[in-house]
């Protein structure tokens, strides 16, 4: 039998597991009972969830194509049979045409 959660600190301590759904049924029930009577903890849950959501969104980063190509070239020199890097044609063509310019008939 899980005792009721009286203080916010106990609620905060369980929050990580609560939002992952890994608390026991009794623990989750006790936490929800506390939340039903504690507006500051409801706010805390909202901001805790928002923290995860915002961080995930802000920290998502795409690997640049140039970096993929250079990694592939690097491994091609060190790993036997590693296929040669396919050049990033967009970048190569752009740079090449920037230097040479379009050929006109």
């Amino acid at each position: 039998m899980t005792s009721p959660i009286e203080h916010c600190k106990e609620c905060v301590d369980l929050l990580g597991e609560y939002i992952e759904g890994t608390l026991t049924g009794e623990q989750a029930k006790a936490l929800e009972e506390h939340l039903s009577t504690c507006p500051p903890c409801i706010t805390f849950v909202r901001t805790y969830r928002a923290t995860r959501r915002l961080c995930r969104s802000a920290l998502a980063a795409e690997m640049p194509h140039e970096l993929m190509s250079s990694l592939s070239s690097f491994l091609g020199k060190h790993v036997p049979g590693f296929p040669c890097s396919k050049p990033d044609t967009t970048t190569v063509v752009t740079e090449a045409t920037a230097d040479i310019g379009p050929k006109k008939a």
Partner: protein
Amino acid sequence: MADTPHLRTQALAPEEPRADGQPGDRELVERAQKGDGAAFAQLVERHQRQLYRLALRMTGSEADAQEVLQEAFLNAYQKLPLFRGEAQFSSWLYRIAANSALMRLRRKRRAPDGLTDQPLELSGPRFSAEGYLEPTSSSDWSQRADEKMMSGELGSAINKAVEQLPDDYRTVFLLKDVDGLSNEDIAEALDLTVPAVKSRLHRARLALREKLGEFFDVPAK
């Protein structure tokens, strides 16, 4: 070595087929172990983006992330004969990359001109002596977040806050909340217990939540 899983010989469960019909990691690893460089290239192609994200957020620099990736994949290739498949290949790779990033950070901190100090204590919510939340820890900024996100200021604040986390906490946080690994996979990758992963993750989130609260509590200029 810390980043080499222990060897054990035991029957492994059959590999789950992939939804895209491509060979699974285990099959590619077995082929790469027999000298198939193209199979190793497929593993690199499959995992490089996640490793890049981790390396970038760990080191805070694209140039360092590039070197971490090169080192990690080369290291993985050289240790491939030792990989026996008890761990998932991705966890094994994450472990190698995380160690490489951590070693790079430590080398930088030891350098004479190293400016990056190891962050100090993690902050967290404040409670009264009776265990109730202090009002400063319960302001509701969650509704204002999306609007701020659009401005780009919030992204900078989050990056800065994550950089300030201690390395061990930042690694767990990135693997879980950004890359979406399970607690079990993170424990395997970082050689931690699952309760230790949960504890670090929760403390990292609490510290980040505090930093975000400070950000939102500053009146707009």
